[in-house]
């Protein structure tokens, strides 16, 4: 299997959570075990769009339990003899091998996954991916010259991994408390993306665009926009080091003096 694999470096590894559940896209070659008309194949592929039921393979380090996964789209691209090329956009954790097997079952003749290439992982796409050779080469160029532009040839800021996560931008004064796991309250909110409902995962960022934490909203965006006080989101994963921004909060002890 080849394709887009986001590799998080150092402290950026904390954003991995946002990527694991984000969508993926693959180009896949499925081999049918008998000759089938392409109209038939197209029809069956269409049936697999939306919800599918899968049990992860025993060898995956995941509970071997039936679970649902969403197929966002399944596009038949071309067919050559018994080889079917299709593109599929799906939720993270969808087993394409099982999808091919199931398509084969519905067709009646059986099928298996011949080849798979990931063309998207969350916001990362093939077009700006780099090879291991590129990494070694540009890293060497950077070490030799200390020219920052070489680093930027193959490394992106970790915030790019959060591109598909709805965002909340906060005041400087609210930042440090969040780095200690504090919940985000209404006065700290400056900007917020539309469409957020209660329970949505959010990326909490500074006005400079730095990731502070991953959190979860406790109310819909409309309410967050109107209220003056109260908690609007809980902090689930702190991404910024404490002390990066000024401490503008007092510990419980001091407050009770």
């Amino acid at each position: 299997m080849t394709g887009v694999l986001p590799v998080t470096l150092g402290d950026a590894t904390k954003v991995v959570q946002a990527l694991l559940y984000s969508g993926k896209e693959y180009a896949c070659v499925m081999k049918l075990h008998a000759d089938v008309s392409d109209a038939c194949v197209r029809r069956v592929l269409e049936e697999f769009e939306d919800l599918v039921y899968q049990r992860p393979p025993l060898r995956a380090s995941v509970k071997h339990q039936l679970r649902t996964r969403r197929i966002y789209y399944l596009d038949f691209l071309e067919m050559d003899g018994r080889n079917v090329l299709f593109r599929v956009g799906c939720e993270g954790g969808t087993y394409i091998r099982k999808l091919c097997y199931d398509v084969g079952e519905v067709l009646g003749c059986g099928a298996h996954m011949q080849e798979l290439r990931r063309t998207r992982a969350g916001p990362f796409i093939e077009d700006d991916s780099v090879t291991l050779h590129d990494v070694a080469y540009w890293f060497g160029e950077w070490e030799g010259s200390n020219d920052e532009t070489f680093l930027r040839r193959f490394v992106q800021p970790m915030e790019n991994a959060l591109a598909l996560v709805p965002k909340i931008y906060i005041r400087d004064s609210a930042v440090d408390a969040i780095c200690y796991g504090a919940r985000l309250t209404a006065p700290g909110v400056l900007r917020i993306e539309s469409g957020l409902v209660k329970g949505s995962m959010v990326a909490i960022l500074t006005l400079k665009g730095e990731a502070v934490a991953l959190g979860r909203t406790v109310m819909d965006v409309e309410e967050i926009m109107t209220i003056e006080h109260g908690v609007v989101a809980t902090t689930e994963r702190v991404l910024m080091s404490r002390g990066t921004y000024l401490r503008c909060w007092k510990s419980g002890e001091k407050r009770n003096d």
Partner: protein
Amino acid sequence: MPRTVAPWEVKRELLVKAEDKTSSKYGCSPEARQADDYLQHGVVNLDKPSGPSSHEVAAWVKRILKLQAVGHGGTLEA
């Protein structure tokens, strides 16, 4: 029934609740991070070759870049 929208197809607007400035005294915009700081907070969009596992490939990146830790976003296994 309209099909489910993929996360990268969702269009969002940025709503402004309040205005404020950010100080230049602390923090740093992601693109402006320097050298080691940029690297330690970076992600590589890697085109994985066939053969080695996702874990092995991530380990190679770690070795090439001389880092203490790496992670990867989603196993690409055969």
